[in-house]
């Protein structure tokens, strides 16, 4: 029996959810695919062990978060010569929901990867603060402070979403 059969079955069940998680972390299809593949390569190599975990998907998420954060650190070291800041554009006929989604995407894109990961784990994966801390390998207090800072940044960058974010902040902090 192929030792990766269990891994394939796991991906059949979890593939969609993990793809969405990767997309929320990166905000870009190519980057999401790269991130997911990089994380899964590690997971596949250790699958016999990972499959015995109570929640293998949590291990994959953690691998993605770590890779995303470490990749961001590497990218910061690149020396570049930016030519021009390109303004974002919106089409006039967007529905209200679409505009809200775009604004939130822009605001998420401005977050450092660790803060972004906290937001995604907390509100997309629906984890408690202690579960987020466990997956990110940090203290609960760190999760709280990162979430607080993230929501403050989101409020600043997306003032039209302040109501939604203020409500969230009260629960989080």
């Amino acid at each position: 029996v192929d030792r990766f059969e269990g891994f394939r079955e796991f991906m059949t069940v979890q593939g969609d959810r993990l793809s969405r998680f990767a997309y929320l972390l990166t905000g870009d299809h190519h980057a999401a695919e790269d991130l997911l593949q990089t994380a899964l390569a590690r997971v596949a190599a250790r699958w016999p062990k990972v499959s015995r975990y109570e929640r293998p998907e949590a291990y994959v998420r953690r691998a993605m978060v770590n890779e995303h954060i470490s990749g961001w650190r590497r990218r910061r070291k690149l020396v570049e010569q930016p030519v021009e800041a390109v303004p974002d554009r919106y089409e006039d006929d967007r529905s209200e929901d679409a505009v809200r989604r775009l604004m939130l995407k822009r605001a998420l894109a401005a977050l450092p990867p660790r803060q972004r990961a906290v937001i995604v784990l907390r509100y997309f994966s629906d984890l408690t603060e202690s579960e987020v801390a466990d997956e990110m390998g940090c203290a609960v207090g760190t999760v709280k402070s990162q979430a607080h800072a993230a929501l403050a940044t989101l409020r600043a960058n997306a003032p039209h979403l302040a109501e939604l974010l203020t409500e969230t902040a009260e629960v989080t902090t």
Partner: protein
Amino acid sequence: VNGIREALDDIAAEARRYDVTEAAVRAGRRRQRVARLAPAGAMAAVVLAAVGIWLPVHHGTQAVSTGAPTGLGADVIVGRTLYAADGRRIPLPTNDPVSWAYQVPGGTWLVSTGRTSATVWRIGTDGHSRPVLSGVRTPQYDPDSRHLVWYTPRDKRVFDGRLSGDRVVDRLSIREPNLDSGDGGLVPAAFSGADWVVLARAPMVVDAKHPTGKYAVWYPGRGTIRDVASDLSADPHADSDPVPMVTIVRGVKVLGLGAAPIMGDRRCLTLAIFPYNYPYSAVDPRRHAVCTTRDGGLTATGGITSPKGLTLIDAGTSGKIDVWKFGRGGMGIPGWAIDADDAHGAVWRLGKGYVRSVGWLDDDTVLVAYRSTATGTDRLYRIGVRPSGTADRLPLPAGASGDVTVVAPVTG
């Protein structure tokens, strides 16, 4: 709380199912093999180092051997070996698939390998190879200006730089313009070298109702970028602004960008291009395809210019060399056409398959690497471009097997 959850769910719904399971399994197997072999490898390295021998490294020097001249008239890569026409055989430093290869002045070669994550190698006549770029997406090279453009997906930047020896200098970069935040990056699809770069978005889902893809033109030297998608019209007669028309390869203008049907395992954008010196009333639309493959790679099938300036470009069913005739509705994308007034008329049908790469041997002859979809194997054809031309199948170099890439000769 529900508000942000719903908003995140909405954004997550834009995600596709990234089918990377088998790629991860392959990588997992490699990691396991490496883990098993690492102790023995480390011990062997210590022993070899102790006796003054060092293991060859990827960007080291590969052993060059010499065989009989290939008789092909151009250099080719078969499998992971570069066969120079004069008989030299140079192993490539990687097993990754080859995307393109060029001769570079000075008798060396520039080879791009890998797809999702590409590396561009400078390979010397002595077999010494050095990565010029690595970890990039869709690198492209203009042999005339010796400029390279590439995209780095992690930070969403497009770069332009000039090849100088083994290095890329005069780098300029720009953040990917946010024309539409929904679907993939705006990667360099075509460029003039030095002057402008067409950034095209490669949609994974082709929407017939919205056939105009997102794209922009970046002018690195000027430090400006322009979204031209909304400025262009598919009707050349309606185009009143000449500015968005740009030369995509020598002798050709681009007038628009559209989405083509999914062809086989490829999803294509097509740039509608027109011979530069044709009057609009006589223009026969041709297509320049920019295709994504299932593994995420993106292939821009560019024009190849002969030593005297004839341009070999992609063409649809109106092409003079019609070698790619598969897909839905009988639509052929892309074939290749000789863009020369005296090359009309001849149509070569090489069977069911597609062109992987081409190179000019002289102004009358082109070498084509062609993959049969029936057998999955590559063949080489020498095609005469004059009206009475012929298509001859050529043998691969002795002992060669694997994917075939024709090395584009020096034209600059």
